[in-house]
């Protein structure tokens, strides 16, 4: 699941990157909304999406892209693009979270609070419901524990009366009854990825923000690391390739210029 605070910016990024990747449907949905907001008719948006998929190197003959495009269009017709830009978490809210027992439960509660604010901002009639798949919730909170311990996190928040669960056996939605508290801003969320890590960074733990993509990741050397990290793993790999290409091209042009000088001298 991809949560975006400014879908127009994301759409422009996807259109320039030309890579569908794993969350292809989410990307198509965001791009469809972007084109719809530009005031294009549905048929034109459909053509644009087909063009985008074809440019990404995907074939139309034997895959389900067509149905995916139709679903993305259906969703784009129903909802407007998300343009919130930032979410504010107040100091009293952070203090309330800090009273919860266990760091993972705090992190989980922080994520639920952010999601509640996010969904309420998108749809004011939402009334505090968070409808996100359990696996996605854990991924957003950067929690990797066995299922039994994950269930324990829910039980802690239930006992503190911060959430309510519907009675339906296969429910996915969580009603976050954590009231919004007014006060000075403690955190301003501008990126909905790795929310759990963002909370840990706020607490002063050894986490850093990638200077390329803005993702908050854990410092692999912990607090003992001498040199602070600049980039996340993916960006570091991309930058390394870019730097080595630049260096090789620089050397190539230098050799060519020397060669030309020698010819002139001869």
């Amino acid at each position, binding site marked *: 699941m991809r949560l975006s605070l400014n879908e127009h910016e994301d759409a422009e990024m996807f259109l320039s990157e030309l890579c569908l990747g794993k969350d292809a449907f989410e990307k198509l949905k965001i791009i469809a909304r972007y084109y719809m907001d530009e005031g294009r008719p549905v048929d034109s948006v459909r053509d644009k999406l087909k063009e985008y998929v074809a440019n990404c190197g995907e074939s139309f003959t034997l895959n389900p892209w067509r149905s995916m495009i139709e679903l993305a269009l259906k969703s784009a017709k129903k909802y407007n693009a998300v343009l919130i830009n930032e979410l504010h978490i107040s100091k009293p809210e952070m203090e309330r979270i800090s009273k919860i027992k266990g760091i993972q439960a705090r992190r989980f509660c922080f994520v639920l609070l952010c999601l509640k604010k996010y969904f309420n901002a998108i749809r004011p009639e939402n009334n505090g419901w968070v409808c996100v798949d359990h696996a996605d919730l854990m991924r957003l909170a950067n929690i990797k524990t066995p299922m*039994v311990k994950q269930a324990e996190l829910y039980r802690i928040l239930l006992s503190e009366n911060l959430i309510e669960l519907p009675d339906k056996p296969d429910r996915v939605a969580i009603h976050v009854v954590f009231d919004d508290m007014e006060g000075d801003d403690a955190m301003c969320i501008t990126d909905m990825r790795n929310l759990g890590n963002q909370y840990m960074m706020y607490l002063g733990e050894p986490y850093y923000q990638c200077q390329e993509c803005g993702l908050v990741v854990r410092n692999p050397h912990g607090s003992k690391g001498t040199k602070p990290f600049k980039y996340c793993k993916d960006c570091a790999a991309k930058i390394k390739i870019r730097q080595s290409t630049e260096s090789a091209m620089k050397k190539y042009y230098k050799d060519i210029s020397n060669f030309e000088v020698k010819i002139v001298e001869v």
Partner: protein
Amino acid sequence: MPREWYDPYYVRRIEDEDKKELYERIVADRKPYFMRYIYPQISHDYRSYERKSSLNHLIKFGEPISNRTQDSEEEMEFIDGFINNSPLGIGDCVMNKICRIFENNFDGKYSKLHKPEGEFDYRILKSGVDYDQSYYKDINNLYKRYNKRISSYNSQLYLEREDEYDAAIKIQAIKDEFVEECYKICPNKYELCDIILDITYKSKSSKGFAWSVCGDVIIENLMNKFGDTLHFPALDADGDIYYGGNTYSMKSVNVKEVDMVVETVIE
């Protein structure tokens, strides 16, 4: 099909009380559990439903749904809800019972019981020639594209329940297309065989690609290595291999000798 046979909401609107009572009892609003093995989409829905319900049971009662005790009234209500809201009828009918017996005996257990001892040494299939590393990279990229294409097609099949015969033809068409591309990259069949074996047998993914592209070369390599002799189990009352109620013993045949005999008979 009359609507009252499968639509419970329609049945509730029937005015004749006797008829309504009868149809409420016999309405078939969902498929029975064993049909999950016929309809892939329903099976997917059921798995998802079971996973979500199991997590909720774990949250509420501290135990997964498979270890349910039904001690408290609340838990009994939860289990009733689980059974009533299930996308499949999970009652104890004869077919569901048979299905569960099969699941208990075969689901994941068969492969565990019959795990091969030690790893298979695929070098026996190779031609043993040196090849250019640039070919390896190109073929590897092609192999990744092939896997992506096949998995995309399989996911489509999974949802649409296409006819098996049509699906096999389409998969064969994809394979033929990739075989052609492979030979465009590396025209030497022995080099191509070794490259593909190195790619497929070093990864955990399916080895079908290797057999589709260079199955004939692999057979040729094996024949050369074993002096054109084939070993196979044949029916034998005194055999030492027991399988499917019969006994077998290993026999050997030299293919060249057989070919010569066939040629003389033809002449």
